[in-house]
């Protein structure tokens, strides 16, 4: 008897392998709705990026030291001394941004195709929770290199916490592990980033996938009128959809490696608690909130800003229970589509304003200084001959 048969016999003698085989085969060859296409790969892409982040994160952990004295030096060591250390660090840094982008695109597809509607409301809610966990991953991981930008972006980010009514001061003190961003903050963010968030994300992913498999992918038919999928009409998950996912994984790897080589992330100057660098800005996914906060001023401005930044997330969580129309096809949901486009374009516009604020820009041959709030003020070139910054 060959080794394979011996192993099979070992398991057959002890477990109900026939039942396990049937369960796996049912999931592997499950039929997906006929309209399932390339856009339906975005969820798997997010998952694969999480796996990539986990693997590269574990590799970085071997050399990383989470203390103020050693963190920045250990990142330098990984980049300069460890073989292929630069590559894993770059893939991890770029992977974080691309994972957030993939999650946003996946949610956008789900929103416009009405796939969050009954019976898939909880699949959507767990998806929004995954989105929040993913950007929290970004926020906590950003501090770990302990460079100037990371240190001060975290100082500004955690400063906002004390504007929360009643518990604000406690919350900020708890998050930082003290009055200011110190080694205590680094330890806390490190533990959250490498222990708590990975397990929380894994748990919610399992629930999300379970719910998604239970109710299958949504069709574009009206709620309650989805016809049972006939086997001859559907697309088999394996091999057809899995092949598409394989193509996307290869492309993702190519993009990650290319970006790592062509546009590497800088290590930056080590954190200095006694000097704030000019014009610190957060990562692109926090730019809309960063810009929005600037429009709320006065004694209650920060509080109103926090409420303003929380509203989109609360709306996202509650959306399947607010939009209870039966239609799924985007052409038959004009209000929801316009609302979604408004939200998406609004966030992009705010993010762009945040990106160009407090810089000089050229538009149609004229130079402008973009103020803190994003208003363009013409620059008189006759008195100021400095070149424009982009």
């Amino acid at each position, binding site marked *: 008897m060959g080794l394979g048969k011996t192993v099979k016999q070992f398991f057959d003698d002890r477990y109900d392998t026939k039942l396990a085989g049937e369960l796996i085969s049912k999931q592997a060859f499950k039929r997906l709705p006929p309209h399932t296409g390339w856009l339906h790969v975005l969820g798997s892409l997010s998952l694969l990026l999480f796996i990539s982040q986990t693997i590269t994160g574990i590799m970085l952990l071997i050399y990383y030291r989470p203390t103020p004295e050693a963190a920045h030096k250990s990142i330098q060591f990984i980049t300069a001394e460890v073989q292929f250390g630069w590559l894993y660090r770059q893939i991890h840094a770029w992977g974080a941004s691309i994972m957030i982008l993939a999650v946003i695109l996946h949610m956008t597809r789900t929103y416009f195709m009405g796939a969050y509607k009954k019976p898939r409301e909880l699949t959507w809610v767990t998806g929004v929770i995954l989105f929040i966990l993913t950007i929290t991953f970004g926020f906590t991981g950003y501090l770990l290199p302990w460079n100037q930008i990371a240190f001060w972006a975290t100082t500004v980010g955690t400063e906002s916490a004390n504007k929360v009514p009643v518990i604000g001061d406690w919350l900020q003190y708890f998050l930082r592990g003290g009055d200011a961003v110190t080694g205590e903050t680094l330890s806390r963010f490190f533990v959250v980033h490498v222990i708590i968030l990975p397990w929380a994300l894994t748990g919610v992913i399992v629930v999300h996938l379970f719910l998604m498999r239970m109710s299958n992918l949504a069709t574009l038919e009206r709620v309650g009128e989805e016809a049972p999928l006939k086997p001859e009409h559907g697309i088999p998950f394996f091999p057809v959809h899995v092949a598409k996912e394989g193509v996307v994984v290869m492309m993702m790897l190519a993009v990650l490696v290319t970006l790592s080589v062509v546009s590497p992330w800088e290590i930056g100057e080590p954190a200095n608690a*006694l000097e704030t660098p000019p014009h610190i800005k957060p990562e692109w996914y926090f730019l809309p909130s960063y810009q929005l906060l600037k429009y709320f001023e006065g004694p209650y401005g*920060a509080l109103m800003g926090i409420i303003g930044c929380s509203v989109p997330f609360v709306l996202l969580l509650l959306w399947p229970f607010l939009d209870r129309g039966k239609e799924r096809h985007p052409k038959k949901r004009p209000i929801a589509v316009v609302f979604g486009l408004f939200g998406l374009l609004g966030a992009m516009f705010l993010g762009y304003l945040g990106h160009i604020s407090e810089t000089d820009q050229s538009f149609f041959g004229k130079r402008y200084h973009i103020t803190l709030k994003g208003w363009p003020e013409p620059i008189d070139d006759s008195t100021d001959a400095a070149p424009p910054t982009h």
Partner: protein
Amino acid sequence: MPSNMNKPPSRRGFLDWIVALGTMITTVAVSIPGLMYLWPAAKGGGDENVEVEGASKMATGQGKTIQVGSQAVVVVRHRSGFKAFSAVCTHLGCLVKWDQSAKAFLCPCHAAIFDENGKVVSGPPPAPLPEFVVKEIGDKIFVSAT
């Protein structure tokens, strides 16, 4: 009044109640030390007097950033003596810098300006810079929060 209100509790119901209460008490008893453990162990300080190194060599109008406890503090020498303010901008926590020529504290993050007394001149900060206590003992200068 519903009829079941008059019924004496069953043995099963009583045991369920005891188990639920026991689980609740255990959860609270286990959680409290856990939450206390997570609460930051040390306060940031700031109560101690910190000497301003080289204060006697500072020219009038010159400023210097020092650390008092976990707080960054800007000490400025005026004609009338030394003054110290928290360097932490009351908007979003960036550190202000003393601009000797403008006689003002400037925040590099959102272009806020505070005057030499720490009051907001322009920009988004909602409050002035908190002032620190300066003590002159002989030719030495000490700064503390209280």
